[in-house]
């Protein structure tokens, strides 16, 4: 059993070798980042995953919020569970609807790092276009665990 901040989990979500790799990546974190899980509560693998991630960096924290808080985070109940990231400038507008499994887990880690460093990896042309936007754009990227 692994004792994790007062909790015991019989089986970790992240294998040991993956935890080591992720811990090394998270050493790149600049400013502190908070991961926020908004869901219906109860036992969940997503809660356990984020709890394990939380333990891999002192600059990472984790907060769980319930359905009653969905509106506050700009979410609807139908889109739960959702993972949000909060950085030095507030809530990121990039979020995860459902579990970030497979390739998407790597995207979550990279988003945490990018948000903490203020790194925006876009071309100058894209940045200029985004600066010209006057309407809202909602991008939903559908993926499946691989």
């Amino acid at each position: 059993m692994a004792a994790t901040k007062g909790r015991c989990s019989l089986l970790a979500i992240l294998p040991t070798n993956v935890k080591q790799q992720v811990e090394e990546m998270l050493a790149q974190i600049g400013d502190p980042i908070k991961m926020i899980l908004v869901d219906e509560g109860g036992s969940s693998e997503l809660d356990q995953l984020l709890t394990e991630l939380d333990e891999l960096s002192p600059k990472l924290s984790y907060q769980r919020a319930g359905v009653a808080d969905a509106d506050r985070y700009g979410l609807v109940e139908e889109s739960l569970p959702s993972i949000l990231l909060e950085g030095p400038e507030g809530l990121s507008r990039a979020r995860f609807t459902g579990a970030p499994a497979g390739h998407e887990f790597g995207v979550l880690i990279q988003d945490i790092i990018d948000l903490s460093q203020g790194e925006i990896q876009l071309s100058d042309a894209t940045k200029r276009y985004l600066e010209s936007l006057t309407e809202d754009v909602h991008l939903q990227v559908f993926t499946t665990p691989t």
Partner: protein
Amino acid sequence: MAMYSPHVIAEMVDANEFWDLTRKHNVRGVPKTVINEGRHYVEGAVPEDHLVKAIQVVVGS
């Protein structure tokens, strides 16, 4: 893009978990990007400029 512009929200959606959305947007292969609740779609992984062009279809240049 969502980290750069206050006008953009980017959401990664688990297609297996959100069947209603998956059916609504006829997601048969992934990744599939839905722009503004279905006003335009992008199939597959595409370069950044391709996605910008797709956004322009919806909200203009």
